[in-house]
């Protein structure tokens, strides 16, 4: 921020800014030089901020009417749906909002994987992002428990039971998590407390995520370092603000369609049956956004190893900046990586599919192969690829292809054929 020598125009503004430089901060945010070639995959950062705020605001209203008690939680949700003014709207926004949040975060993560946004000097942004993602999963899982339906109850039972795989202390930890000898009222009240807390932790981490982003500045589809500010950049306001706004509106149309026309399609019907500790549902499945990890968990025959595999699948992402040995960021100039990238996308989708299916026969076999490939991609393919791959020549600047006559015209042409802009 120090590079901006910003002085407020008004006398009061100057007086205030000398004491608390909020206006300098605002000026930094509006002037923030952003690469002008960012494509629409980059708009999901703003969309995610919108998702977080939507979840917090609707969640606050829901918390005013919800009762965190095993005997009353289900009833209070129905009370919200029927008798609270627009309670159905607020709850459907919150429930579908969780899915939209994950949809956006997966696009955001896979964008980062494609364009190498996790590489130096942006490792800290990436790691904070992974922590946010972990907290999102925790918040979503606990939120799903709150309506106290059958899937809530049994999902909570399955997931908390994973801790029993820890040798020696496992059982003790599970009892401690439950606050009793089974998932019951104490479990519900603590999940509610944590579900309320975590979004604010996420909010704090989002501030750090953006702060860490504003130090090196945005990566871009070409993946090269650029001069800031320069011909290659535009000020955040109005250029990026309006573009993010446009993308956000398109996202909201999809969001609205779910909320108003198919509000229950992303949930499981069993969650409209009140929790019953004596009746186990035929299939216990998590929400769609956790399915790939659920598939990894179930593909390992040993419980402890399964839990380790599932957690490793997430934590391995944090090591990605060091596992990927290639100096080139953008997959646009990495012909081989580009192919492996799409195989990974397919692999994760397959994992998600088999995660929803019963863990038996062919499904189990597919889940095992896909799990093995997932780890292979990060532990073997990426480190080797960095040394073996013949990358395409990268342009010197974003504007260079337009100027023409550069030594890297071939690359520039290639870039155009890929339709980056």
């Amino acid at each position, binding site marked *: 921020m120090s590079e901006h020598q910003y002085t407020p125009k008004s006398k009061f503004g100057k007086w205030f800014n000398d004491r608390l430089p909020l206006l300098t901060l605002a000026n930094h945010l509006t002037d923030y030089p952003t690469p*002008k*070639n960012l*494509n*629409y*995959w980059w708009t999901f950062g703003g969309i995610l901020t919108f998702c977080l705020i939507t979840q917090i605001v609707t969640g606050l209203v829901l918390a005013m009417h919800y009762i965190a008690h095993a005997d009353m939680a289900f*009833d209070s949700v*129905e009370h919200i*749906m*029927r008798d609270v003014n627009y309670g*159905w*709207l607020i709850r*459907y926004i919150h429930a579908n909002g969780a899915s939209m949040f994950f*949809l956006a975060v997966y*696009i955001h993560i896979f964008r980062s994987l494609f364009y190498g946004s996790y590489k130096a000097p942006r490792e800290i942004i990436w790691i904070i992002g992974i922590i946010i993602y972990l907290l999102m999963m925790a918040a979503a899982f606990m939120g799903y428990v709150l309506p106290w339906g059958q899937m809530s109850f049994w999902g909570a039972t399955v997931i908390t039971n994973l801790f029993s795989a820890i040798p020696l202390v496992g059982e003790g930890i599970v009892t401690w998590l439950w606050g009793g000898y089974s998932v019951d009222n104490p479990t519900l009240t603590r999940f509610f407390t944590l579900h309320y807390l975590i979004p604010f932790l996420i909010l704090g981490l989002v501030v750090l995520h953006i702060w860490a982003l504003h130090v090196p500045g945005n990566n871009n589809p070409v993946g090269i370092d650029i001069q800031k500010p320069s011909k290659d950049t*535009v000020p955040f306001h*109005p*250029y990026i603000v*309006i*573009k993010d*706004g*446009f993308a956000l*509106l*398109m996202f*909201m*149309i999809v969001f*609205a*369609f779910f*909320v*108003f*026309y198919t*509000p*229950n*399609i*992303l949930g499981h*019907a*069993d969650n*409209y*049956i009140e929790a019953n500790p004596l009746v186990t549902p*035929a*299939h216990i*499945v998590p929400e*769609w956004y956790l*399915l790939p990890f659920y598939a990894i968990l179930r593909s390992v025959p040993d419980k402890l190893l399964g839990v380790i595999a599932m957690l490793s699948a997430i934590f391995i992402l944090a090591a990605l900046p060091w596992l990927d040995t290639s100096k080139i960021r953008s997959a646009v100039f990495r012909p081989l990586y580009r192919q492996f990238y799409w195989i990974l996308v397919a692999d994760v*989708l397959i994992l*998600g*599919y088999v995660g*929803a*299916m019963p863990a038996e026969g062919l499904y189990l076999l597919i889940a095992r192969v896909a799990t093995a490939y997932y780890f292979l991609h990060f532990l073997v393919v990426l480190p080797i690829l960095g040394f073996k791959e013949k990358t395409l020549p990268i342009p010197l600047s974003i504007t260079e292809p*337009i100027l023409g006559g550069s030594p890297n015209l071939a690359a520039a042409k290639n870039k155009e054929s*890929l*339709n980056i*802009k």
Partner: protein
Amino acid sequence: MKNFLGIFTLTALLLGFQLNSYAAEKVEYLKTDWSFKGLFGKFDRAALQRGYQVYTEVCSSCHSMKYLSYRNLAEKGGPEFSEAQAKAIAASFEVKDGPNADGDMFTRPGKLSDKFVMPYENVKAAQAANGGAYPPDMSVLVKARGGGVDYIYSLLQGYEDPPAGVKLDEGVYYNKYMYGNKIKMSNQLSDGLVEYGDGTNATVEQMSKDVTTFLMWAAEPHLESRHRMGFKAIVYLIILTILVYFSMKRIWSRIETKV
């Protein structure tokens, strides 16, 4: 932009397939035209009123509807009985109230603010009266079953003689749409079982459709306002998106880069 939309649509489609398979069991349910489906879907008022009649005369002797109150029957977007009719319906039920000043429980005629009277005192009593099976509460039943309205509609008409080789215990019936085909509820509907006030012929098919419509409303009492608001919200968003698109084009025209 085109590239982006292409990949986005493709991924969305793939996810869609995934969700579709996630919805699980592929049974061909009986189909009928539901008036409440689609962008402008509304309940058929007469069907809701007939459905309520089927519920009270047939289902309610075993199935509770604990989240509904008699006032709901007169509310907008529902069966829309007149307030006098809803009051009369409520008054036809005996409601347990109390304790009074002497500390005694007493019964009185129902009021609009009362919840639907439960057929049994508690779950145990319900099970005892039904051969150990608990007739599920019907308030959100449609949303609590994978196939939704089509499933309930089919189930009501799905009773048949068991195929050769299928043995049924005492008090268990064969239904081709039930999960596992064994159901503890016997076939409840037969042609002409209820006498509709509006002269509609009470066939099994008609009653199934009416009562399922009623159950859909019971589970989603705000469905009509949801559809109305949804249409307005989406039209509003589309217009705003178009306006913002042109503003964006205008702003970005100051520099050479396309958006």
